[in-house]
């Protein structure tokens, strides 16, 4: 297994963002986590990417413990955040060079890795222009190329197509499908049912708990009455129709700094 987590949990003050999440992901497998706003998806990804320390449970990525062996875990991951994590004053080439240094790519291999990533992202012509002014699709391609540069074993995508136009979404999915075909394991969150259905398995998460996990057909059969039940119907059956705006706190907290570092 490339990823295993058992009873993972995290609270923020009195709010339990993730209560008890357990699942595993095999090498080359793809899993989509879907859930309402504030369900605990981003907090779960935060813990698995070592940005957040779990209060409870444990998880391993490529055999390394996320809490005790964070550096090894980080080396095995390629991550795309919900919003672009870029410095708009840098160019694509500078962004990729910086990433190569952060992941300790050997100096002699860096230039070739940067050129390869630029080609993969289709940004060779814009390689030395500051990112300010790039389209959302161009930034996403750059971020995906960057996430792959150090040869990760697991790709973690937090709502990767958010804010992209249909062309940008199609292009990104073509790239993700290509990576999956090459055996890359993918863990993603999304609100788009059609995107979730492209993955091997789907996990439905709500109020910090993994309510169901399986293939699309398994979920449809178990919670929709028949194998061809609509995924959205299954989702609503499990999570209800009530609006969840009030629970939208925890994902925002993933990106917040603590008020005290001690």
């Amino acid at each position, binding site marked *: 297994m490339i990823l295993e987590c058992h009873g993972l949990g995290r609270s923020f003050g009195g709010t339990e963002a993730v209560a008890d999440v357990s699942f595993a992901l095999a090498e080359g497998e793809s899993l989509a986590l879907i859930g309402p706003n504030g369900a605990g998806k981003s907090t779960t990804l935060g813990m698995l990417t070592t*940005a957040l320390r779990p209060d409870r449970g444990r998880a391993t990525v490529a055999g390394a413990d996320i809490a005790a062996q964070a*550096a090894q875990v980080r080396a095995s991951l390629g991550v795309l955040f919900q919003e672009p*994590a870029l410095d708009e*004053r840098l160019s694509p080439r*500078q962004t990729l060079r910086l*990433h190569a*240094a952060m992941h300790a790519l050997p100096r002699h291999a860096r230039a070739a890795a940067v050129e390869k990533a630029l080609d993969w992202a289709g940004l060779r012509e814009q390689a030395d222009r500051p990112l300010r002014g790039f389209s959302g699709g161009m930034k996403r391609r750059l971020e995906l190329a960057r996430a792959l540069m150090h040869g990760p074993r697991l790709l973690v995508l937090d709502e990767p197509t958010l804010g992209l136009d249909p062309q940008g979404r199609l292009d990104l999915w073509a790239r993700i499908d290509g990576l999956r075909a090459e055996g890359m394991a993918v863990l993603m969150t999304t609100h788009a049912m059609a995107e979730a259905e492209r993955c091997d398995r789907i996990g439905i998460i709500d109020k910090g708990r993994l309510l169901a996990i399986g293939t699309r057909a398994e979920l449809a059969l178990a919670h929709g009455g028949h194998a061809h039940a609509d995924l959205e119907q299954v989702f609503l059956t499990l999570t209800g129709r009530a609006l969840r705006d009030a629970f939208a706190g925890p994902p925002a907290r993933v990106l917040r700094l603590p008020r005290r570092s001690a």
Partner: protein
Amino acid sequence: MSALSLSVTEALWRRELTRYLRDPSQIFGGLSRTVLWLIILGFGLGATLREIEGYSYAQYVLPGVALLNVLFASLQSGFQLVYDRQHGLLRQILISPAPSLSVTLGKILGGATVAVAQGLIPIAFAPVVGVQISLLALAGAMAVLFAMGVGLTGLGVLIALRRGSIDNFGSISNGVIQPLYFLSGSIFPLKGIVGGIGFLDIPPALRDQLRMHGINAIGGGWVVELPGWLDMLVRLNPMTYSLDLLRWCLLDFHQLQLATNLAVTAGFGLVTTVLAIRALDRARQR
């Protein structure tokens, strides 16, 4: 990856420089502060307050204006970490295997380098206020500016990591930069002989001769001394000692023990750097 990666530090240092060079507003800010504080205030207030310890008012405030630019550049670089952590590239850096020590050092050394560049802007105006600076003095001043930049960028990183958000830079300017600036002896001396209105100018040759005898002002000068509480606040501010050191480099004039100035300047940089490294390491996996 080992605990220290020079490659990571260098990459982040370069990033700070690239950001600076692609941000003309920061350079404009450094220039405008120079014009306002050194030229307008220096010559304007200098028309009334003729001399401080034998230096014109514009000459006296020159090192303070360099400090002001260093304060803005360094703390801005440190505080920028809040936005960078929430919405920028730093999120990606923090989930990389790069060691916290190297990441923090890259940030602080980059901020300090930008601080030197900003601090040199008023120093470039030194001839305008009648100060000639030798290459040796310039090298010394740059070293002091760098040390100040290290300490203040480290302080900025620390404050940024302790705050959830920084809504506007104005509150930081009023709450941190201005107290550090005004309580450093930048615009008034701790104690000194001030020459006032209506007294005769001292010819330069005579001034030099008097200085050789330890006399910095004559004829109508009076001794000024800060009130005790203000003197204490000024002495509690580490920037007071760094500024005194810088003033010694630029004007060959100091009011505090040079050894104390050196120790406080180096110590402040070391302490804030160590604390910033620890704070970043803790904030990395919260």
